[in-house]
Each structure stands twice: as structure tokens, then as C-alpha cells.
């Protein structure tokens, strides 16, 4: 649709389910994937809660959208930056998050983790390296 390739960052700072922002952010990412841009997602502050494994929403009646994160690789969304300090402040570690993988086409389709645990300072670097920052 356009020859320009821009760096898009989707910033997720909110918990899932209490509000719809996390879910509707994911809908943007899926649609955006068709545009062949350079896409990254940032998870910091309460946004890290979006990635927990074992989400079961039957009791509250809302739709569980967390499996969608595992499908992102198929849409070539492979850079999910998670801020270490945000996780730690919430008493969580990488073990509490879903195992999200993608197949690396440049490396014989090897399965690689999409989640990249980075420091707060590195997150600032990622943010400063973008063309378009969409916040949810």
C-alpha cells in the first residue's frame, strides 16, 4: 500500500480486562501487520500483566484474548519488549509469562522467543528509535 517502511511501536502500559485498551491495542497490531512496517510492542508498567500465562476469564464473562499473543509470530510481529523492572516491581518473573515464539525465516525457521526482556534504560532506547508511537 505504501513503499515507506516506518518503525511503529505499540506501547502497552495497562492491565488486561479491567479496561479494553489491551484488547483493542492487539486488534490494531494484527491489522497493522498487513502493512509491512517495522513493528515492535512495548510492555511496561501494568502492561506486563497482559502477558501472564494461565488467564481464565470464564468467571468474569469476558473473552480471553491472551492466546492471540501466541499468534503474533504468524503475523510477523516478533519483537515484544518487556521491561524487567516493571515485572520485578510486580513480584513477577519471566516464568509467569506466556511462552511466545516465532519462526525465524532468516535462520532456517528456527523457533525463537518473541519476548525480549530488557531494562528500563533499554526500553527508553527502544522508544527513542521509533517513527510512530501508539499508546494504549
Amino acid at each position, binding site marked *: 500500500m505504501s513503499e515507506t517502511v516506518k518503525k511503529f511501536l505499540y506501547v502497552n502500559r495497562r492491565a488486561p480486562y479491567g479496561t479494553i485498551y489491551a484488547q483493542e491495542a492487539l486488534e490494531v497490531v494484527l491489522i497493522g501487520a498487513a502493512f509491512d512496517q517495522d513493528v515492535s510492542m512495548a510492555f511496561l508498567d501494568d502492561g506486563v500483566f497482559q502477558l501472564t500465562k494461565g488467564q481464565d476469564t470464564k468467571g*468474569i464473562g469476558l473473552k480471553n484474548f491472551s492466546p492471540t499473543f501466541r499468534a503474533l509470530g504468524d503475523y510477523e510481529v516478533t519483537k515484544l519488549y518487556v521491561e524487567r523492572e516493571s515485572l520485578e*516491581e510486580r513480584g513477577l518473573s519471566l516464568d509467569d509469562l506466556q511462552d511466545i515464539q516465532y519462526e525465524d525465516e532468516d535462520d532456517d525457521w528456527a523457533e525463537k522467543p518473541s519476548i525480549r526482556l530488557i531494562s528500563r534504560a533499554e526500553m527508553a532506547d527502544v522508544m527513542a528509535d521509533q517513527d510512530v508511537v501508539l499508546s494504549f
Partner: protein
Amino acid sequence: MATLHTVNKSPFQAGALSSCLAHIKEGDTVLMIEDGIYGALTGTGFSDKVQASGAKICVLGPDVSARGIDTAHILASVETVDYDGFVDLAAASARVQAWL
């Protein structure tokens, strides 16, 4: 008769839990619902405050499950209730105050 306080926001994102805990009276109950359930996590900057609150602290179980928070991460002193338990708590209190 005591008050049932509901807190529906993450303590990391909003001041509701802190303000609630600063205004409770002996015998009150605090029920964490929706994104408020993150206030019941172990190992956070709020854990000690919640445990030392003196109030009975509850979380709404369906909201904990929805968010994929393992019970191992929930403070042992916090009681888990379902919607029926929420109704019972409301009925047993003189008033319900929502910390929005």
C-alpha cells in the same frame, strides 16, 4: 456496623488502594475487584502495607483467575471470594464505599 470498601484499580497505576487503606476503620473489609486484585500480590511495594492494614482483605477470585495470577502470588492473609461472597460481604456491612 462496618464498611465494605471496594478497590478496582491497580495500586501501581492509581492511588485508590493507598487512599482506601488510609481511611479504613477497625472491623472494615476491603474487597479488591477487577484490576484492583493486583493489590493482593506478594513481593511488591504494597504487600507489607496490605498485610499490616488491620482490615480483613479479600480478592474477587474470578478476577484473579482471569488475569492469570497464580495463587502462589497472592498474599496468604488475603481471602478469596466469588460473586456470591461479594454479595454476602455487601449485605453484612452497613455501607459499601467504592474507591474508584
